[in-house]
């Protein structure tokens, strides 16, 4: 057991305790958390900086607003409904227009207006928010994902997660929804995570439910060797997110839209650790390398180059 712990340590694997004690508590100021914990604020922040985000269709602020939801949704064919302060992907609905009185979920099942109203009421009461405090609900553009992922995603929206440390993109993965994850891209809900070569955006190994897989469990297509398009733009968004939130250690989630290109979905002050399994590499050596060179990495371009130079995976 201690041998295993030692080998993991040598491999530079970061556990929850180290992530919390050293990186989130050490580099993220508490006052900046609301910027990323509230998706409405994140959206405003990104828009003010001129960065692309999924278009906001509407915000529900109180139970009374539930009545307005039909009106908002009627204007669009597809949409995503999210609790503004939801954690871990809980409470997110990916939907499209359905038969009269119904909405169609990403999985294909129907949801009645009543059921949706109940879900919204729960979300507004804080059922899905971190501390259980009352929450807002946002309705936004449902991303039409880039066909590059067609073969290796089951419904839903695949997104790219990049860990950014002191403005340097240190590790990246693409999260592919599966039938099990109901179109959501969260790993603990059953989505696949595939590691990415940070220099080129090429998929490496993939992890599904804590074990390494080589093909998508639903489409059975190989998941490695796929190039993520707009990779330079993604790196640029990731490196720039540091100036956006001032959080030293964060995860940025980016979706690739067929027409609109990369859109910032959300930022996370406590990004998960499964990205290490997806990349088959520990985070710590990379983080420490950045820590040592932090003084020379003031400019965004320097940070991106540093990342490409040090964290590339030879093919």
């Amino acid at each position, binding site marked *: 057991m201690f041998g295993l*712990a030692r080998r*993991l340590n040598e*491999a530079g*694997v970061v556990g929850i305790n180290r992530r919390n004690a050293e990186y989130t508590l050490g580099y993220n100021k508490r006052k900046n958390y609301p910027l990323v914990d509230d998706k409405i604020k994140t959206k405003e922040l990104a828009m003010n900086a001129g960065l692309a985000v999924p278009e906001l269709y509407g915000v529900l602020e109180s139970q009374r607003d539930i009545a307005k939801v039909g009106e908002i949704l009627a204007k669009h064919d597809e949409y995503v409904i999210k609790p503004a302060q939801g954690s871990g992907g*809980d409470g997110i609905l990916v939907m499209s227009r359905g038969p009269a009185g119904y909405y169609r979920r990403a999985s294909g099942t129907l949801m009645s207006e009543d059921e949706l*109203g109940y879900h919204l009421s729960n979300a507004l*009461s804080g059922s899905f928010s971190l501390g259980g405090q009352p929450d807002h609900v946002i309705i936004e553009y449902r991303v039409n994902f880039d066909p590059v992922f067609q073969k290796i995603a089951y419904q839903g929206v695949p997104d790219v997660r990049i860990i950014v440390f002191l403005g340097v993109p240190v590790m990246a993965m693409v999260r592919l929804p599966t039938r099990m994850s109901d179109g959501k891209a969260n790993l603990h*809900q059953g989505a696949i995570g595939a590691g990415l070569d940070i220099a080129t955006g090429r998929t490496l190994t993939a992890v599904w439910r804590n074990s*390494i897989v080589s093909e998508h469990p639903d489409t059975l297509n190989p998941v490695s060797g796929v190039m993520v398009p707009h990779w330079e733009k993604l790196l640029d968004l990731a490196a720039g997110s540091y100036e956006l939130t001032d959080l030293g250690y964060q995860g940025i989630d980016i979706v690739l839209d067929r027409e609109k290109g990369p859109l910032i979905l959300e930022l996370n002050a406590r990004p998960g650790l499964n990205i*290490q399994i997806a990349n088959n590499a520990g985070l710590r050596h990379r983080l420490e390398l950045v820590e040592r060179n932090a003084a020379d990495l003031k400019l965004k371009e320097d940070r991106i180059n540093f990342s490409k130079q040090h964290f590339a995976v030879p093919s």
Partner: protein
Amino acid sequence: MSNKHLYVLAGVLSLIGIVIFLYKTLVLNFPLVATGTVEVWNAEATITFEARRGPVKVDFFIPGSSEELPTYEQTFVTRNYGFVTHTVGVNRRARFTVNNASGRQALFFRTKARRLKPEFSMTKAPPPQRRASGFIGSELQAANSIIEAVTAQAADTETLVGLIVKRLRSAGPGRETGLLLGGRRTDKRIATLAVRLLRHAKVPARVVNGVSLREERRSAPLVHWIEVYINDGWVPFNAETGARGISSDRLPWWRGPESSVKATGASNLRVNFAVKRDFDLALRSAVQQARRSSAKLMDFSILSLPLQTQQVYKILLMVPLGIFFLVVLRNVVGMKAFGTFMPVLIAMAFRETQLMWGVILFTLIVSIGLMVRFYLEHLKLLLVPRLAVLVMVVVITMMILSLLTHNLGLDRGLSISLFPIVIMTMTIERMTIVWDERGAGEALKQAIGSLIIATIAYIIMSNPYLEHIFFVFPELLLLVVAVTLLLGRYKGFRLMELTRFKVLATRSR
């Protein structure tokens, strides 16, 4: 942020805890085991006399306490007599009074004493007043010649005492010592005379009267020894051998040549001392002594609170320990559970229900609650009213379970009423959300995790040994705080993460 600050804080807290703990165990003799017993001695004095119709006043010396042989739980049985205790010179005395008494009277006094050190050591005191030896005539001449002879041989006060006692012991009828002692050579006379001779040689000295605690005696004779003032304190000397030092198996009752009791309005006055060996709960004895010796510390002890409050703290003091293990199980082992401290609160309820019943009842309530909660899902209630209904359902479920188990003759089931209702409700609510969002597997995993943590916390929190330790030595909580502080900066892997990241250890070589 530097960890030095944390280490210093944890170190200081542990140090304070350990110092108080050691002081209480080593100096105040607080026992480490609840059932620990210690040998104590019961010394009892019975004063009997005939009252001659009218007011009676009895003065009786009572023993004080010392570091080597503390006395405690002094009790008087005096029937219609009123009594006060006060200090007379170096002694403590009780005065018993009654307006009118006749016939045979009996008064009792009892004390407990516990030997803490094998020997009496010097007791510090300011220099006493000089006292006259009171020799006159031929006695004075005899005393002078003894002192003259003895001081010629003595190197210091200590040897002087030894020489005087030896001379008195070996007194022949024709010598000066014989003249002074007269016919009755009792120990008391020898001790008193030795004191007078020492005073004559300008060495302050006094007689100590006490009872021997060496064996149980219905009627214990008094024993006597000498205390001599040497270098700022009274040093005990054996009046039989003249050697320095007195074993603490003698309870000093009073000092001086007077008799132990005197009375007015009474005749045929007698005192009988009895000595009995006894065993006392170590904690009780320690608390009693600490009350007498270092009252300051005891004022701030839980043991000085009313008994009922003490019982509450007995349980409350175990909560931090339960929470400490919860921290370990969560942050070091990596177990998942509902609510931050919910398992510890459940564990507290287990104290009343006992483990097996606790687990059964908990599972029953949560299962029934879950079913009702899934049903409520169809009614699409707002959050707060829904939770309120759930609380009511939990209460009703508990009541029905109590009635059922009672009618089945299983009275353990009644203790269900002690489950924390609101906590149970929140658990049910949280579990449904997890069930919906992450699947039944994850929900059950967390529920079972909660139960396992609660069980472990219960086993620790109900351990009678630990309960005793933390009740008697609450300062040990500072150590728990210190370790928890350190755990707050624990950056190593959680045990569960080892399996989670296992692949990385094997492949990344």
